[in-house]
């Protein structure tokens, strides 16, 4: 025993081990002085070892086997007690006693812990990414040259793109975003909307690091078409199918801002009250409807027309010369007068026109054209009146 005690003292002097001696009733006989540093309550002789080491509950049989010399020592690895980790060795110590050696492995375990933490976190990130990928969202990652470094299957299939292609070539060329940075910025901050192959996508972007950017494409076609239908309803006058008052005004304001040359007209159907009085309101409505179709048929996309209210309409016709614009509008007026409406009603229109000058506002245009329209009425209806003589209206 002297021998063992010597070895023990040698080990303990290195201060990485603490020990307890436990008898066959699992009662503590003695322990090293250093233990109190690690345990909340220092173990006292005559206490049950399980009080201080509940880790050993369940190992009673094995402890007894070691004690009787039937099996060699056993070890429990990396047991945390307070702020420390220990490997616990249970070894034979004289007859009817075991020695519990506690090896402080904290320094080693802390390093291991850091590695494990890092590796587990990485695995979690990867599995989250895989989940997004499996989620049917379209994903691609591009490098600083706009070249696709990664694209998931649904992205590759839908856009017919693979790694090595650039994102702008096939996907974005179809859209208003010419510049990839422009698109990225929009997608990063508000989500960008794009339309590819009749589907609508909301695109979100995220930086991955200094070099890579991630794009997530969410198919919102269903929502978008519903919203678009709603917007269309607000943009167009339901009866005539021409632009609504608000939409027309907004479009004219845009044209003014873009300094475009155009003729602005106010149109008022002649003697419309008579139609209402003679044939009733329903006939009035259907006449307006038919007038709308006639206008859309006559002008196609070339002319912008809106309903201002009642039987009053507005028109903008873009030409570089006033005479050409006037001629087109007058042709329209003449054709209208010969067009047979239902029940052979004849519809004519009085038109006031004005040329858009630099710095005109919508209100100024409207006032001038409206005045001219009244003149057309007083001068006998079914005619076009320009608010000023043509020569002064030449434009570039």
């Amino acid at each position, binding site marked *: 025993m002297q021998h063992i005690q010597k070895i023990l003292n040698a080990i303990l002097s290195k201060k990485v081990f603490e020990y307890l001696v436990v008898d066959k009733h699992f009662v503590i006989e003695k322990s090293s002085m250093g233990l109190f540093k690690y345990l909340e309550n220092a173990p006292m002789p*005559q*206490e*049950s070892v*399980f009080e201080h080491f*509940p*880790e050993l*509950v*369940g*190992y*009673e*049989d*094995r402890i007894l086997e070691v004690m009787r010399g039937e099996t060699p020592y*056993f*070890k*429990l*690895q*990396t*047991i*945390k007690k307070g702020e420390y*980790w220990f490997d616990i060795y249970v070894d034979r110590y004289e007859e009817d006693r075991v020695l519990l050696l506690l090896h402080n492995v904290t320094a080693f*375990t802390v390093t*291991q*812990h850091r590695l*494990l*933490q890092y*590796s*587990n*976190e990485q*695995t*979690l990130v990867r*599995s989250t990414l895989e989940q997004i990928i499996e989620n049917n969202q379209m994903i691609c990652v591009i490098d600083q040259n706009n070249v696709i470094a990664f694209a998931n299957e649904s992205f590759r299939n839908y856009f017919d793109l693979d790694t090595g292609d650039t994102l702008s070539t096939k996907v974005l060329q179809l859209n208003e975003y010419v510049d990839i940075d422009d698109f990225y910025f929009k997608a990063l901050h508000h989500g960008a909307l794009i339309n590819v192959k009749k589907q609508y996508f909301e695109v979100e972007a995220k930086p991955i690091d200094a070099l890579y950017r991630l794009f997530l494409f969410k198919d919102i076609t269903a929502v978008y078409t519903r919203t678009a239908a709603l917007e269309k309803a607000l943009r167009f006058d339901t009866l005539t199918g021409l632009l609504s008052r608000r939409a027309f005004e907004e479009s004219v304001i845009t044209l003014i801002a873009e300094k475009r040359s155009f003729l602005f007209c106010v149109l008022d159907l002649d003697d419309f009250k008579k139609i209402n009085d003679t044939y009733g309101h329903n006939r009035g409505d259907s006449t307006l409807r038919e007038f709308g179709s006639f206008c859309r048929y006559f002008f196609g996309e070339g002319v912008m027309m809106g309903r201002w209210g009642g039987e009053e309409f507005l028109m903008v016709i873009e030409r570089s010369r006033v005479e050409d614009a006037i001629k087109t509008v007058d042709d329209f007026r003449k054709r209208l007068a010969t067009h047979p409406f239902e029940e052979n009603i004849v519809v004519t229109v009085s038109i006031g026109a004005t040329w858009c000058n630099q710095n005109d506002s919508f209100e100024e245009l409207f006032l001038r054209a409206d005045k001219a329209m009244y003149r057309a009425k007083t001068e006998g209806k079914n005619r076009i009146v320009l608010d000023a003589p043509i020569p002064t209206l030449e434009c570039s």
Partner: protein
Amino acid sequence: MGNSIIMIRKKILLLGDFAVGKTSLIRRYVDNAFDDKYLTTVGVKISRKRLETEGEQYELLIWDIEGATPFKEIPKNYYAGASGAIVVGDVSRNDTIENLQKHIDNFLSQNPDVPYLVAYNKTDLLSEAQRHAIVSSGDHIFTSAKTGENVPLLFESLLERIIHAAHSKNS
């Protein structure tokens, strides 16, 4: 030793893949607390919880074992002398659910006929419909360490099984 109340100590294990919420379930049960931050467990840490059932005093010695990863084996001798186990899966990570059976088999190979329960944890992340969609075999309890849902029930049901297993063994 000089104490008239007899405390029955039971060793129970929490097993499962890493980050499924083993530590969080124990923390919720023992301290009624929860933390969103992930701090992985290395090795083993034991928590104690006392409770009284059927007129007897129990002390659960709950082994919080480092989660299984593909890179490292869990020492088998941790399993020795266990009275029961809770095998935990994370409902938001399918692979952790698929691995449940592997953990059960490992446990039973060391402790044949010892009762265990399966916890489907993090149910706060699921909708009701998703919950119904989870197909499972055997005994399982839906839990959330975050909200505390079914957490005491989980541990108490296991203890109940442990007690009944002991009774049927004795008779």
